[in-house]
């Protein structure tokens, strides 16, 4: 449903050089999560604060040189929620306001704004992070943030094989078509589902083979993590700056009301 962007893990990272790219991945992860938390905690009536948060993000996007067009293209993933948000004012209860002659719920309008603003800002922050941090660095950052090693290892073996499995599925589809199937119609659902079932079998068997290869090379179940110097203070300051600025703005807005 969410389109062809999925699985293109290689194309996530935008290989240019910028201060955002040079940030330590652990600091950037924390900074992104902190920014998303502040956005989620911004009161819905604080339009000025949302505007400031958007401005901060625009600055980060410009500094990171990943290109506004690419960010907008990846934002397409949130479209369903924007559509949902536009429906809220019509189904919500409460006092009504006229918008272009149509009575809509006032509180519903605020709720719609709330969804649009938070969804866009939160998603943009995640997009900037994945575009400026190569996957291996992100995994290393997770490990240094004390995410359990086994989780990091599972995620890293997942991202390592996603494209391979997607390509395998595409080959199975080609094979189906060459056997005379036309997987665009409902009655073709049987052979299509059979391919997915076979993909599971092949994935599991591949997992067993990979495990065998790992054991042969001396894998004992414990994972080695390379030692890296601690995150520099400058990186922490830079990565947490957007969240800090936004948090201060929220506090000022709440106190000043």
């Amino acid at each position, binding site marked *: 449903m969410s389109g062809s962007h999925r699985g293109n893990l290689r194309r996530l990272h935008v290989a240019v050089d910028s201060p955002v790219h040079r940030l330590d991945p652990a600091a950037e992860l924390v900074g992104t999560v902190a920014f998303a938390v502040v956005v989620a905690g911004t009161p819905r009536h604080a339009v000025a604060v949302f505007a400031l948060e958007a401005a901060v993000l625009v600055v980060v996007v410009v500094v990171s040189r990943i290109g506004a067009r690419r960010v907008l293209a990846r934002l397409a993933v*949130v479209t369903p929620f924007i559509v949902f948000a536009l429906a*809220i004012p019509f*189904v919500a209860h*409460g006092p009504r306001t006229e918008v272009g002659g149509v009575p809509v719920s006032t509180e519903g309008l605020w709720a*719609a704004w709330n969804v649009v603003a938070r969804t866009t800002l939160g998603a943009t922050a995640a997009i900037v992070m994945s575009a400026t941090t190569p996957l291996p660095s992100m995994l290393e950052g997770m490990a240094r943030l004390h995410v359990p090693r086994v989780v990091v290892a599972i995620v890293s073996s997942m991202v390592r094989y996603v494209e391979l499995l997607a390509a395998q599925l595409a080959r199975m589809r080609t094979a189906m078509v060459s056997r005379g199937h036309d997987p*665009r119609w409902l009655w073709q659902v049987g052979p299509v589902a059979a391919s*997915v079932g076979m993909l599971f079998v092949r994935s599991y068997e591949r997992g067993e083979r*990979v495990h065998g290869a790992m054991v042969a090379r001396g894998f004992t179940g414990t994972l080695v993590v390379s030692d890296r110097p601690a995150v520099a203070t400058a990186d922490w300051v830079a990565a947490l700056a957007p969240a800090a600025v936004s948090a201060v703005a929220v506090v000022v807005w709440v106190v000043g009301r």
Partner: protein
Amino acid sequence: MLVAMHAPDGFLGPGVAVVTAVISIVVIGLALRHASAELDDRQVPLAGISAAFIFAAQMFNFPVAAGTTGHLLGGALAAILLGPWVGALVVAVVVVVQALLFADGGITALGYNVLNMAIVPAFAGWALFLLWRKVMPRSSGGVVGAAGLACGMTVVLSATAFSIEWLFGATAPIPFDTVFGAMVGVHALIGIGEGLLSALVVGAVMAARPDLVAGARDLSAEEIGDRRPVGARAFAIGGVLVAIVFAVVVSQFAFDDPDGLERVAQDHGFIDRAQDHAVAGSPFADYATRGIGNAQLSLAVAGLAGVVVTLLVAYGLTTATRRVPPRWSLHTTSSS
């Protein structure tokens, strides 16, 4: 589907986000422990590649009608293939990666997204699967039938989980019953597709490598060899049971009587307070709880009556439109 799946940042209130995050972290921590006990040192490659499989399977678009496609959600399917603990872990990894890398689902929404898409489907799906296994024959066909029914119903349960979270953390003045009705209605349709697809996928795996299906480990080789499809009757009975359960249970929640609501509010003297609340920060948290608690029995009876009437109408329609088997004969066709 769009609403329950991959909810963005700030979609539900901060309280719900924190509480569901704590629940999700605890359950996934337990799942990690169980998975490493079950898979031993095979855990990393097997769980990782299985997560990649779920990720890839969600990319595969199934035909619904010309031009329209849908894809597997796979939460309950993962549990049936891999067991509930490994299944929950694997789908949770997928959900987290989708949020971090693809902005598909908010980072601060991960608590409820993991709960609704990984934990609830894996454990509710597994429980329903075991229940259906008791009804179905002990055979490959029985496993496939139980998988289909369990996966389909699990989609509706995920939608219910989201609706319940909405009850505690609504961010818009839409009452619980509206959200619940819309969510369950849409997801009942999606559930039919999910159930059908999951059954076919499990059927394919049962045919090729039945030993890989965690939900069929208890079957003997002979029972696995019994691949007769479960008869239409078992499915009809299953469908009727599902309809009855939903009519009785769902009607308890889908209480839509504004007059009754107002009267309850007046009786308890909180109608003024309710208006105060409407101006406050998060006024909708308890919007619909007031609707529950009254006249459950009559609702259940009404729901049951609805099912009976619907079944009678359906029976009438099928008998009325049943094609009379034509008596093929060259002579009669040529002479008429």
